[in-house]
């Protein structure tokens, strides 16, 4: 009888601690209202992006008959804005912002035999979806470094197949390819904490950043990384602009 009481007491204590922890985390996320925004620009003449000949698969060739597809390794907008740059907080994050992956499900679509978007950023542990809009089968073959703890996979998606849902265990910039269409090439940018990807004009906004001092890193697949220090204080978004110089 005495034992049972003891057990009940311990259980109560555990419950109290758990509720407290939940409340605390809740408080932190409620506070993560801050934002970091800015623009990423490219300076200089953009490198030549070779055209892609998709004739090997008539479906792809037909889907792109009116456009001329080309590589997307460096995509510069009309105002010099650099697209597909991933921005994330590389230093200064702690606690809950790190431990709770985002709950939205980013989508990586295979459309007209290209990846949309070309770079898909996501949080560690965040579930993402690979979908196909094409009437030809693709295989999705991401190539992580096995030393990071991310496990490589390779699976096909025939036309009409439901989305493939996956997540990654460790932060890493992972190249993804379709071997059936060797020109298809994209990235899974897996980072810890809040992130953003630049749009066609090079603009971005990282949301849900709790107030504090941070280092923001901008990563571009061929141009490398740049960092900037920012302070997020509350109401107004902190600013961080980047400029990548061409060769």
């Amino acid at each position: 009888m005495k034992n049972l009481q003891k057990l009940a007491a311990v259980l109560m204590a555990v419950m109290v601690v758990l509720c407290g922890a939940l409340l605390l985390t809740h408080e932190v996320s409620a506070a993560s209202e801050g934002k970091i925004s800015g623009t990423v620009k490219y300076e200089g003449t953009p490198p030549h992006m070779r055209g892609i000949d998709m004739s090997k698969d008539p479906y792809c060739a037909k889907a792109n008959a009116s456009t001329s597809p080309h590589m997307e390794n460096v995509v510069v907008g009309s105002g010099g804005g650099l697209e597909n740059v991933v921005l994330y907080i590389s230093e200064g994050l702690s606690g809950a912002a790190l431990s709770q992956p985002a709950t939205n499900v980013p989508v990586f679509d295979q459309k007209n035999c290209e990846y949309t978007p070309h770079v898909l950023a996501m949080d560690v542990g965040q579930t993402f979806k690979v979908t196909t809009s094409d009437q030809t089968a693709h295989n999705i073959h991401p190539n992580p470094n096995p030393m990071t703890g991310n496990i490589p996979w390779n699976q096909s998606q025939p036309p009409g197949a439901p989305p493939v849902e996956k997540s990654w265990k460790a932060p890493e910039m992972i190249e993804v390819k379709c071997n059936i269409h060797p020109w298809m090439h994209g990235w899974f940018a897996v980072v810890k904490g809040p992130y953003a990807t630049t749009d066609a004009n090079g603009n971005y906004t990282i949301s849900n950043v709790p107030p504090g001092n941070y280092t923001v890193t901008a990563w571009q697949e061929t141009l490398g990384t740049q960092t900037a220090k920012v302070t997020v204080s509350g109401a107004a978004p902190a600013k961080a602009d980047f400029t990548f110089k061409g060769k």
Partner: protein
Amino acid sequence: MHDTAHAHVGQHAAPTSFIRKHVFSLDHKVIGKQYYGLALAAVLIGMFLSWLMRLHLGWTNLAIPGLHLLTKNGAPGDVMTPEFYLQLMTMHATIMVFFVLTTAPFAAFGNYFLPIQVGAEDMPFPHFNMMSFWVTFVAFLVLMSSFFVSDGPTLGGWTQYAPLSAVGQVGGPGEGAGVVLWALSIAIFCVGQLLGSLNFITTTLDMRTRGMSLWRLPLSAWGWFITSVMGLTAFAVLMPACILLILDHVAGTSFFVPANTVINDQMQPHSGGSTLLWQHLFWFFGHPEVYIAIVPGMGIVSHVLITNMRKPMLSHRVLVYAMGALAVLSYMVYGHHMFVSGMNPVSSLVFSFPTLVITIPSTIVVLIWMGSLYGAKLRINSASLFALGFISMFIAGGVSGFFLAQPSIDIMLHATYFVVGHFHLVMGVAAMFGIFAGTYFWFPKMYGRMMNETLGKIHFWCSFVGAYAIFMPFHYLGLAGNVRRYQAFAPEYMQHLIPLHKFITIAALFTGAAQLIFVYNLFVSRYKGEPARDNPWQGTSLEWSTPTTPPPHNNFGDKLPVVYHDPFQYGVESSTGDYVMQTSPEKAGPDDEA
């Protein structure tokens, strides 16, 4: 003299416990039935896989309800992925070639009837024999287990061409653990067949009873003996090849992968291997394997035909010599699988010649069968129907060999459905017909009950017409240039052939369903069939003179039989009717040596 000499060899007391009687039995008859059961389970799985493939080929993005249960990633939304198709294809071929066509006609019937037909109590090495089955069983489990590992089974095809089979995971789904399990399974399988072959050879050479000279062996026994000699040499080559392949995966060796291999933009850590080496090793086994599948069938069919024609073959010896010639030549022709593989073009011509020559012994076998049919008193029953169907299929599949033996034509037909049609008819369907003929013929001896004849005939008609409906169009597809091992028709590719594929799919579903009649017949007849007499077909060979049906533990009771005749004393006048059994001292006719 013989009977006393080997009375101790292979002799073991009748088992008493259930496990020693039915599971770990030393009795060749039980082992034969175990092999048959394994082959039956395997063939049903293999056929089921082929149904899935055919459905996919006819209606590519069709969702097959429940398909996702068979695979982790291979069927999102029940639609088959390209890799899953190839995995099914590889498993279908491996299961059929190794666990059906090698085990059923050779290991199953051979185990049961070879010792009885030579007049022995058992095989000389019963423990090896038991091991042979259980090792094969383990091999089967290992192969099936690859369905349950990470990416599923290997997709490399039953030929497992290197370097795709040797580079590991990066080569595609199933190319990691799947290949290793495949190679392991086949290496284990080889051990089982080597043990079996050893037993068969020794049984034939050393265990014959008094009066049973080699030439008095029935043709089925000759078939198994010749096959076991091929098995001993062919599997002995495949086993090391599989071990080297495993080493390429687990030990970092490069037997089959050359330097500078770049897969998915990654340099592979290999150098110095040869991809053609695998092909030579594989086909050095692979071509004899075709004859391992078909020669026992030839023996069984000859045996069934003689009994049902009520007359001997035109020449017993010529048939034996022809089967022997097939066995010898089968080692010299393997290069015809590699005409366009990049080996020296002179080798192609060198390999072409024996490949063309091998049609001569094959023709002799067929002509002897047909010439023997002349003037026969042919009985039509399920067994003889399948035996005659075997001949028809063997001809149909054999004539396409003319094409594939010639390197210049092979440029057009290599790796097309023509090849698929060829080997399915000649080693798939024909060998299966041999198995069916043997089953309808020997079932009464094995289980003491007759099989249902009506069901047997329905089974035959569906199978015979169905097999032609499936495999003849394969030749047309091949002539039109349809490449094999394609999971679907890529946009614009060979669209006009899709209706023909749909026709084949429907024929395959129908013919496959007809096989369930056979399975039903087997099980119902096993328990409810009409009781069989000792010699229901009025046969002459030793299995029909056992004291009981099925035969007792030591086959012939206390006394081994004494043989007085050749096994083909039919169409004679004797006290029993138109035949004289091998054990009967009665003189059969002027030619009889008794």
